[in-house]
């Protein structure tokens, strides 16, 4: 096998993780800054110019914090849980297509495996894994809040995974492929699927908020009831890893939403002319979506757990199914089916 290919993969993998890490750091900064502006405050403005070094300061602080492990906790699982939670968040984005350019006489694809023909299945599979980390963290802490919080969050995540999964079906039908690269291509030929799949898009956004435990579905963060839920016993870097996962997932779902429904790296005329703009176009779309997520957090109170589950099972799931039906029906009527 080509050694150059190996090096390319390794370099891309490292770049991906590093980008996500930096993205996480500056997403916390962005969230704090925006939340502050929403609330008549300044937000972090001491560490570095306009507080730009704040994420570093936080990280360094957390590294030097004591990590307490409760006495009756299951030590191995307690330490493994944050690791298990964080890995899926890092590896999901491997299948996101970022466009490609011609350089040195060969085609360089920006993405790691954007062409993977089962991209959507891959995303679903990896998201499911991240539930384990949360359940295990809640269970191994030997703490009532943590256990209840862990079980709650996992039930919430699997419930919304259904709606999320069904929302994937629409784009897959339109593009006749599970490959995200094909889906983006299909959108570049027609219009963004957000236009063609409005129900699917809305279902996806809501379900994604629940899936990543963000406001107004931030049950694990429900400090008002369970102090902090599954990660209540975690401190120091292990706690930071749960935060890292949460924020990385914010980025991840924004990327997925942008790819499936907002044309991904493609922007009409712009990326056709300058293909190297692909990653930047995606970045811009992601920032807009992230801003939306933060805006929601600044605005809405939290729904109650039973209401959340009812919404997931009684509204989102039927709506997503309906979307599949409608898509199939409309495509049939329009004669798009053989």
């Amino acid at each position, binding site marked *: 096998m080509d050694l150059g290919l190996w090096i390319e993969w390794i370099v891309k993998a490292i770049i991906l993780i590093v980008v996500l890490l930096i993205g996480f750091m500056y997403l916390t900064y962005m969230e704090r800054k925006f939340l502050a502006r929403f609330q008549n405050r300044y937000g972090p403005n001491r560490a570095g110019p306009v507080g730009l070094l704040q994420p570093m300061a936080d990280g360094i602080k957390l590294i030097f914090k004591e990590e307490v492990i409760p006495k009756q906790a299951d030590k191995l699982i307690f330490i493994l849980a944050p690791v298990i939670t964080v890995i899926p968040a890092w590896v999901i984005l491997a299948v996101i297509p970022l466009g490609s350019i011609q350089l040195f006489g060969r085609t360089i694809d920006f993405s790691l495996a954007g062409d993977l023909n089962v991209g959507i299945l891959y995303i679903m599979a990896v998201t499911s894994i991240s539930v384990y980390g949360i359940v295990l963290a809640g269970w191994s802490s030997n703490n009532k809040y943590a256990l209840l919080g862990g079980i709650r969050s996992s039930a919430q995540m699997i419930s919304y995974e259904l709606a999320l999964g069904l929302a994937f079906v629409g784009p897959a039908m339109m593009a006749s492929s599970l490959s995200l690269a094909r889906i983006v291509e299909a959108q570049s030929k027609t219009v963004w699927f957000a236009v063609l799949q409005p129900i699917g898009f809305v279902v996806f956004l809501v379900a994604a908020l629940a899936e990543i435990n963000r*406001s107004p579905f931030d049950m694990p963060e429900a400090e*008002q009831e369970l102090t902090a839920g599954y990660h209540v016993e975690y401190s120091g870097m292990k706690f930071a890893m749960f935060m890292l996962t949460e924020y990385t997932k914010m980025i991840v779902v924004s990327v997925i939403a942008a790819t499936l429904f907002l044309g991904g790296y493609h922007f009409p005329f712009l990326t056709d002319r300058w293909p190297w703009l692909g990653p930047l176009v995606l970045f811009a779309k992601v920032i807009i979506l992230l801003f939306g997520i933060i805006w929601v957090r600044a605005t809405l*109170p*939290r729904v109650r*757990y039973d209401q959340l589950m009812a919404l997931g099972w009684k509204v989102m799931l039927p709506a997503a199914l309906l979307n599949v039906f409608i898509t199939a029906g409309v495509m049939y009527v329009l004669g798009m089916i053989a």
Partner: protein
Amino acid sequence: MDEQTAVPFIDVTREVDLAARFPEAVIVDVRKEYEGYIVNRDRLIEVATAIRDELGYDYLSSVTGVDYLPDGVMEVVYHVYKMTGGPGLVFKTQTPRDEAVVPSLVPVYPGADLQEREAWDLLGIRFEGHPDLRRILMWEGFAGYPLRKDWQEAYFEEEGKPFKNRWPDGQVYRIEDKNPYENNVQYPADFIPEEYEPENDALLYDSLKRSIRGRDPELETDVVMVNMGPQHPSTHGVFRIAVALEGEKIVALKPVMGYLHRNHEKIGERNTFLQNMPYTDRLDYLSSLSNNFGYALAVEKLMNVRPPERAEYLRVIMAELTRISNHIFAIGTFLNDLGAYFTPALYAIKERELILDIFEATTGSRMMCNYFRFGGVTRDLPEGIAEKIHRLVYDRLPQKVDELDLYLTNNEIVRSRTEGVGVLTAEQAIAYSAAGPVLRASGVPYDIRRADPYSIYDRFEFDVAVRYHGDTYDRYLIRIDEMRQSLRILQQAIKDLPEGSIQEGKPQYQVRVPAGEAYGRVEGPKGELGYYVISNGKPNPWRYHVRAPSFINLTGYETMCVGNKVADVVAILGSIDIVLGETDR
């Protein structure tokens, strides 16, 4: 009202003659400047039932234990009122000091629950038949009853202030040097502080287990007992709630308080009358001016003075501004309890700051205002402040209240989280002695400013806000309503503010308070705030009791919560709006 100078001090008992109704059980209290009746404790329940059912005094406002050490008698004082308004009725019962036992009035007035526990805890009066007589403010296992007159605190110095010169030799000394901590601390028998397990709450958990209600008979789900608090992010301070959960559902709940207890009343009895004024600020530290108001009324009743006209207006203005600042803050934090991430709270705090600016300019302090004096207030409005208040109550605040209303009231999530949650019916609210917004949200239009007017509230035009569902949503809405009504009062008061003096007589540093008893109550932002003060003619009050709405409103907390979800515990608590400084005293 026939004349403008209606006396706010109501002749409390002349309406009914209880002594004639129960000739062998009830006698009129004939002590000088005392009022009401003394009921034979063996027939207390019978008489209380008659008072409630036949005379219509359906609302138990306050239960106070008093230790008459020289007479060797303990007295329990009950203040009851009619929910239809009007003056109240005082009845008392006495018990020998060494074996203080009184029948519990919980079967007649469930609102006596926490208050009797408090009297048991602090005075050692045992209430026979009380369903759950545990200590409430002190910890289980505490030796002694701190409000008894012969109990001395760890750094006891003298019975009452002002203490003798602290600089006897031209040099300051501290009582801690003369009286080391160990010398004056009592421990229960065979108590070793080092080995004490402070979390030994067997009694609490037993009580919690006993009161479990509404379990699913089919599913044998584990009932999980969880502590929320004292170190919990959303209990509004060091407040603790022991909850029994079946899944997400609450099957039993006990509030546990006292973590901020400082024996306010004992300190109040050591202080001189005037020294207590700044001390009342610390009760409900979000509405210090209302606290001042109630205490000033009680002592003025004893002294029989009335503040001049301008002072009355200033008092009303300050009290109503306090109400707005309290309610706007309460709504902000309530939304926080619903999980809104601080945005409403910070917008609310912004408006509150403007009100605090006025307090600071007028009283010298933003929160601990210490503004009222017996027969007046300390300072007049500084230059420009009247105009500032004018602008605030005519322009800015009405608009901001509308804004709050616009953005929050019809929010889908707010409604689904609060409607039908934590219901307290009108009957329950009265029975549990709920007060203020909690009572009025349950459909009882009872506002002391109207029902039993004090100060000059009878001159203003305003409506008593009332809502009818008794759920968390109504308890939120009623605060918006009340802010609007307060603004109406303020608009009238600031327009009519007369010129004149602000203090009856000369400002005094030491007041003479004639012997007697008095109960002064005001409609504080959180509910009926009452002060029961007994003077024996000495510089210090013999008894100083606070009827704290934050405390008594918690009596119905369990009823509101049981059957709801665990997330509602905090939402309901937020809708009651407690301040721990007042709950724990």
